[in-house]
């Protein structure tokens, strides 16, 4: 039955490939300062994108007939920015009813109409990792999307071939959502503490392991015994088993150094090593340990103290991690902050004394590595996807302005042609000025909103007192 799923996924990917080809275009960007990220800075350089793929980088390149011609004299071209932590383009974010919901997937709630896609592309972002929320210890599977603004089929914005990823969450969010309902009264379940979070993780992995073993045993027996009985089907444990098989990358919401180390130990016990710690505000304290484990980190540049467990951090977090050999990225977790990730990278550079390439790598090739898509995007190299962002002024300058963004060689943002209303879909009934709530255009704006989401969810539940922690995020 696993094969059925795989075949289905392959079919999905195939369809996606065909679609992206249909969108692909030819573009010649001339005479730019090209920030390749992996191969230094090239002056007065042309980039030719053919069929959505970077075909040539050099000088005096000639545009094939019909290609779009962009004079980028005096402008800077960098790889499309990659946001490793976003909640845009989703119609729901948290299935907050269970501490483990590995089976749910953002693939099923991807919303191509979300204006957040366009707004992100206006900040040079071409790829977003759209994630399940942090209500559950093991949340849902995430989805990596390309910002193909204008597409209306969810399948048309998927990053074809991107590895599967899953959201984990440690600390206060899952303990508040599950362990502290009704002030510990009816309905409170494990985890109420960080100890409980570890226990939930270990139970889930143990169950996944047994499930995998049960199917292995069945498959072995079925080859000789036609009356072998297959184990009870379990969508949740199917995914846990796939994590154990190394087929799914973990992206874990985390803050404290102790819980970060805890998770590396749990994963070590189960032989899982592909992990990116998200937020990870105290990761700098355990940077050598993370480097040794091979874990990655995706952090904010200078944002903390929005709740107790993230009371302590530093603007040097990203630089310390990077200098210790941890693959580090800067993410947004926000439909506002994702529009100036280049500025966030610049802040980490300013604090930590990083080079330009190091700073830019944190919003390009490093998040690509964390998402397993570094062979396709994250730098300007021949053969990579034609995802580029063009700036007036160096993107790490406070004065920079994003002016053009291309995905697969298709222009998705042009500052010169940025009309008031760039929506693909418009609610026919809502009051003008109240579009955020419409079903197809709904964005998950911010982690504040994520909490608000949960609040309204719990308000709909009869027997529960509202958690009080929402004030800490305000």
């Amino acid at each position, binding site marked *: 039955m696993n094969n059925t799923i795989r075949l289905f996924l392959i079919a999905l990917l195939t369809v996606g490939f065909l679609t992206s080809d249909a969108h692909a275009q030819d573009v010649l960007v001339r005479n730019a300062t090209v920030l390749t990220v992996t191969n230094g800075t090239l002056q007065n350089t042309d980039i030719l994108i053919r069929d959505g793929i970077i075909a040539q980088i050099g000088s005096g390149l000639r545009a094939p007939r019909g290609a779009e011609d962009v004079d980028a004299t005096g402008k800077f071209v960098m790889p499309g920015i990659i946001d490793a932590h976003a909640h845009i383009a989703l119609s729901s974010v948290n*299935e907050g*009813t*269970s501490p483990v919901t590995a089976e*749910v997937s953002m693939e099923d709630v991807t919303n191509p109409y979300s204006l957040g896609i366009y707004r992100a592309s206006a900040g040079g972002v071409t790829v977003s990792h759209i994630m399940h929320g942090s209500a559950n210890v093991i949340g849902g599977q995430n989805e990596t999307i390309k910002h193909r603004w204008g597409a209306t089929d969810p399948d048309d914005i998927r990053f074809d071939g991107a590895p599967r990823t899953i959201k984990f969450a440690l600390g206060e969010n899952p303990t508040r959502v599950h362990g502290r309902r009704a002030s510990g009264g009816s309905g409170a379940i494990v985890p109420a503490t960080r100890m409980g979070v570890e226990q939930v993780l270990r139970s889930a992995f143990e169950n996944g392991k047994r499930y995998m073993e049960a199917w292995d045993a069945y498959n072995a027996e079925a080859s000789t015994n036609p*009356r072998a*009985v297959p184990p009870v089907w*379990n969508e949740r444990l199917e995914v846990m088993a796939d994590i154990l098989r190394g087929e799914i990358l973990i992206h874990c919401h985390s803050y404290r150094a102790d819980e970060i180390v805890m998770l590396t130990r749990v994963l070590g016990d189960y032989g899982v090593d592909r992990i990116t710690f998200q937020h990870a505000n105290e990761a700098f304290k355990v940077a050598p340990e993370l480097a040794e484990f091979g874990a990655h980190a995706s952090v904010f540049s200078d944002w903390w103290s929005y709740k107790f467990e993230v009371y302590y951090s530093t603007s040097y977090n990203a630089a310390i991690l990077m200098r210790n050999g941890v693959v580090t990225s800067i993410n947004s977790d926000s439909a506002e902050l994702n529009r100036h990730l280049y500025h966030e990278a610049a802040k980490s550079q300013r604090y930590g004394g990083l080079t330009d390439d190091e700073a830019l790598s944190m919003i390009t090739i490093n998040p690509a590595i964390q998402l397993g898509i570094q062979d396709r995007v994250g730098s300007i190299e021949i053969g990579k996807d034609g995802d580029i962002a063009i700036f007036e002024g160096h993107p790490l300058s406070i004065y920079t302005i994003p002016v053009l963004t291309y995905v697969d060689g298709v222009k998705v943002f042009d500052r010169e042609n940025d009309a008031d209303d760039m929506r693909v879909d418009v609610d026919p009934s809502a*009051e003008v000025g109240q579009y955020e709530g419409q079903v197809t255009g709904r964005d998950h704006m911010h982690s504040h909103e994520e909490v608000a989401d949960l609040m309204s969810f719990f308000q709909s*539940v009869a027997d*529960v007192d509202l958690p009080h922690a929402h004030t800490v995020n305000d």
Partner: protein
Amino acid sequence: MYSFRGILRGAAFCAALVWLGGMPHEAYAQKNSPDIPVVSNVVAIENARIVQGPARVLQSGTVVFRDGVITAVGRRVDVPYDAHVIDGDSLTVYAGFIDALSHTGIPEPRNQGQPESVPDRSNPPFDRAGITPEASARTALDPDHGDLEKLRNVGFTTIMVAPRGRMLPGQATMALSAGTNSSEMILQGMQPMFFQFTGAQGVYPGTPMAIMSKFRQLYREADRRMRLEAMYAEDPSGLARPPYDAVHEAFFPVVAGDRHVLVWTDEVLEIHRAMTLQEELGFSMILTGLEGGIDTVDKVAGSGLPVALTLDLPDQPRFAAKLKADSLQHILDSYDDETRTATFRDVEAEKENLEARQLWSRSRYVGMAALYENAGIPFAFTTMGVSAGDVHGNLREMIEAGLSREAALAALTVNAAALFGASDRMGSIDTGKMANLIVTDGDVFDEDTSIKMVFVAGQMHEPSNTSLGNRSRDRAEASTSNQ
């Protein structure tokens, strides 16, 4: 059965009727008595314009039906000696409309308040999670439910009735829109499993993503259990007894391909979700609702899935409710997709353009049925979530936006019958089919037309308020004047 009650109300209210044999006026006072004997169960509508089906019109003909079944239809038809004859001069006869999905006749649950708490909300009992696919609309149908008469009065004689609930409320059933008890109403035939993306309250599955996962879980485990049961039935020796519960068992015919899944989608992302599940698991699906499914026309056409479109239309935005059609058109025409206001001082100009865009967006919703027609998709219509009084006004708007009258009629009759494998019994006025008929005084899609009679399995019903004028517009004007 042909009731006195119907006959007498017909005689009293419809001057066009001439009853052979005459009716004693004193019987009128006894119209509520169930003991009055039936005079005859044969009816002939003579010299009427008969729309046998889409683009199949007899300008003047006669239709005869006996015991609820059409026995003859044509230009020259022998009228049986015992028939009640209705003079159809100036009347038009249509096949009764078929509603491809609604809850009409299913009472609202009495306790709409807070759901009961459960010890573990991550693993609630099936019924608390809204998962009762073993239930059936057949046992919940209330023949006295007021909505039945409302829907009948606007021309619907048959309804695919689905139980109310959340994710998997149970099996739907075809039912007539009239009957003295539910047994009289329930029709043989397809009983699809009703499925919608409505999460449970406060327990798993709460969101659409969990509903997707839960559906896969139920389906794949049912698949496993079905195989186990087959193995056990063949030879139980040495095997543990296969697990049983009513929910998984209700999935067996779906997995085996013997039962359709009737899925309700009320926004475009739900259309994609439903199609994803169908493609992934391979069950037989009927796709209904599709509100806002403007961008999915090609995908739906390519899938070949049977489709029933919503008869609902989005409300006009508040600013537009008071405006007349020509001013609305004027605003709509003023929309400029390149408008780029320079400063915050231009916010009024921006707002006006956004409002124009909104009208443009609504016009797309209104024109959606026409798009599906042009794509060659033989869709039916569903009244789910639509008040009966809005049905004809909405149909007229869709027709004005390009939907052909033939396609509208087909959606309401032959296409819906085909959707449920009932073309041999209903959907057109042909010999041998059920006598589900509408009698009007004009084209059923014209605003000044009235429905004079509705025959459900040969029984006459007369709408009390027969006008098909735009009730929602009347309502909107009334509410405006109240302000």
